[in-house]
């Protein structure tokens, strides 16, 4: 509405004062020149090794992209299951090799489409899901052996995983061989993104339930993708992003171990989700350092013996917080550099935020542009030609050593303050990252932290050429009608019995996944199953701290 101050059409403050120190976001001062001495002084090359071997710093596979490029998996979903199914097929037709499902907010927090709090939210930011029937429609005609599916859902993840498995089983796929991923990282939802449902303790118990259930029944499925991503989006620096994610992954691992599983029975199915915006070299070093550190933690602290247990598999993508509303077409170029970061970092899966996301749910054209960006790297730019191309750079190896040390420092700090679960439950981490987000916003506004189009190289903003994604109120109404029809047609006796069993299992403290699977197959709804569990687990109350 108003714009104060003068626009800076020229270079950033940093470019104007070339003698000031250069410090990356993780707090590491960058030297003018790096030599072999710097590598030696920061710990040498012991942690470099070879790709496909411990400590996996150079990559989790020996041949990496020579054998197979990263999976391209744009985040998609809106309206109802029919609309989403069409967009899935469009993306697959354009060469996408995996699916990344966006759910609407009611589905993400365990509410049915006819809940009165869901008004105006049904199908808005993702696909509406009430029952197994929606999954059947959304994945109709998609070969689940060829296309792996990632479910971006957390608070209601146990239910959505059960729906995915039940749908696949119904279509005749062998669950024991089924691949795919669910985000299912509830601890980071308390820090950022906010789709929590139950209090912290029962929430993490549910995560452990899904890991245990999948280890026994769907051993190729990845039930959790631990996310540094959203913690970074909430204000964490790159070293904290990875360190907090490892603390969270350790918390889940500890819970599963308490149930008597051996670390090698499930560690290989833990995966990660990290952010790619920011300084190129800092991010590449972050990923290389993270791989080595995670391998060391799983081997030395948990006694894993199988190399597969030690690898940090990841989606490295997004970059939303790096994109700007100003001069939105510049985001196309930012996205290309972010994709380069991901490719140089040995990501297994890549997804890019689209240039129009500050304005709207991405258009089909914007999604295709992101896909083409990744395909350019694969086909024209040589990113798949050789493994870990930046290895051996004095700068990158030094920074990798330093980033690993920073991550260890952050993890030690968390342990010293009572551990990640406690720090999330009492709001300490939330307050810390939001204070950092505020400090960074101040630095952007003062010009201290350069942002092209925002505090340097500014210009009068034109009305952007963005195609707005409309909200289809009719679709929401039809979703509610279909839900009413489902409730009328299903065997209510079977639903009631299944929900009673779910409540009983929740009360008994046993793994609730079998009871959820049963309820899903009886076409119980997301809201009904969530209410059954909430009657035992209670609801989360957010600590507000500044």
């Amino acid at each position, binding site marked *: *509405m*108003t*714009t*104060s*101050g003068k626009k800076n059409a020229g270079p950033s403050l940093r470019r104007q004062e070339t003698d000031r120190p250069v410090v990356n976001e993780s707090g590491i001062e960058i030297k003018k020149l790096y030599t072999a001495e710097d590598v030696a002084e920061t710990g040498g090359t012991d942690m470099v090794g070879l790709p496909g071997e411990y400590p996996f710093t150079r990559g989790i596979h020996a041949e990496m992209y020579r054998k197979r490029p990263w999976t391209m998996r744009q985040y998609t979903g809106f309206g109802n299951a029919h609309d989403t199914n069409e967009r899935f097929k469009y993306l697959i037709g354009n060469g996408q090799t995996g699916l990344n499902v966006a759910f609407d*907010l*009611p589905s*993400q*927090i365990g*509410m049915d489409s006819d809940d009165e*709090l*869901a*008004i*105006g*939210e049904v199908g*808005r*930011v993702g696909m509406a899901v009430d029952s197994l029937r929606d999954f059947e429609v959304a994945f109709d005609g998609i070969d689940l052996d060829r296309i792996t599916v990632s479910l971006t859902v957390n608070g209601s993840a146990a239910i959505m995983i059960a729906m995915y498995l039940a749908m696949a089983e119904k279509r005749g796929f062998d669950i024991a061989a089924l691949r795919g991923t669910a985000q299912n990282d509830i601890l980071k*939802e308390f820090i*950022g*993104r*906010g*789709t*929590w449902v139950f209090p912290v303790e029962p929430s993490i118990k549910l995560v452990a339930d899904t890991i245990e259930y999948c280890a026994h029944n769907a051993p190729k499925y990845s039930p959790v993708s631990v996310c540094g991503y959203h913690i970074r*989006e*909430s*204000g964490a620096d790159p070293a904290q992003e990875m360190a907090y994610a490892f603390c969270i992954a350790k918390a889940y691992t500890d819970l599963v171990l308490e149930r008597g599983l051996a670390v090698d029975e499930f560690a290989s199915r833990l995966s990660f989700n990290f952010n790619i915006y920011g300084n190129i070299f800092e991010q590449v070093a972050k990923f290389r350092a993270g791989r080595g550190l995670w391998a060391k933690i799983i081997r030395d602290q948990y006694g894993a013996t199988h190399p597969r247990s030690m690898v940090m598999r990841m989606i490295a993508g997004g970059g939303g917080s790096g994109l*700007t*509303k*100003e001069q939105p077409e510049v985001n196309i170029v930012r996205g290309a550099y972010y994709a380069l970061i991901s490719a140089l970092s040995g990501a297994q899966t890549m997804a890019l935020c689209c240039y129009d996301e*500050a*304005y*709207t749910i991405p258009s089909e054209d914007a999604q295709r542009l992101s896909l083409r960006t990744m395909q350019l790297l694969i086909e024209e730019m040589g990113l798949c030609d050789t493994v870990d191309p930046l290895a051996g750079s004095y700068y990158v190896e030094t920074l990798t050593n330093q980033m690993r040390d920073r991550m260890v420092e952050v993890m030690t700090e968390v342990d010293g303050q009572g551990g990640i679960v406690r720090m999330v439950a009492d709001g300490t981490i939330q307050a810390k990252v*939001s*204070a950092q*987000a*505020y400090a960074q*916003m*101040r630095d952007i*506004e003062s010009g201290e932290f350069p942002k092209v189009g*925002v505090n340097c190289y500014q210009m009068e903003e034109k*009305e952007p050429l963005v195609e*707005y994604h409309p*909200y289809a109120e009719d679709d929401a109404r039809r979703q509610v009608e279909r839900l009413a029809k489902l409730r009328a047609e299903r065997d209510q006796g079977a639903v009631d019995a299944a929900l009673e069993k779910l409540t009983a299992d929740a009360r008994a403290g046993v793994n609730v996944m079998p009871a959820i699977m049963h309820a899903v197959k009886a076409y119980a709804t997301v809201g009904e199953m969530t209410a059954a569990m909430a009657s035992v687990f209670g609801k989360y109350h*957010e600590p*507000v701290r*500044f």
Partner: protein
Amino acid sequence: MEGNRVRVLIAKPGLDGHDRGAKIVVRALIDAGFEVIYTGLRQPPEAVAQVALEEDVDVIGLSSMAGSHVPYCRRLKELLAQKGLDDKLWIIGGSIPLQDQRELEEIGLDGVFPAGSKLEDIVDFIRERCQ
């Protein structure tokens, strides 16, 4: 001084959980010397109107990132009118498409601060209108 401080309510309407922006604005307003009440996530219109009444605020601020603000503000407007709160300064920020900005102004929002707005603009706007 204490008794004269402008009281600002910052609320997260609807179901969305992206609160980075809301929390940044809360901190900026506290630093600017305002008294700030932050509701946390998932506030239905009824709750926002009730807290605004109970806390006797001068400003009602919403942070919307997931697009449901137009129907939400229509409902909130009715509730604010019922409680005699329609004279309060009413502002919104977040991911607000251009066509929604016009609609929100028609509904009765006094200030719309879409992504990219400067913190000092929000602070100055409240100062000018409340002091």
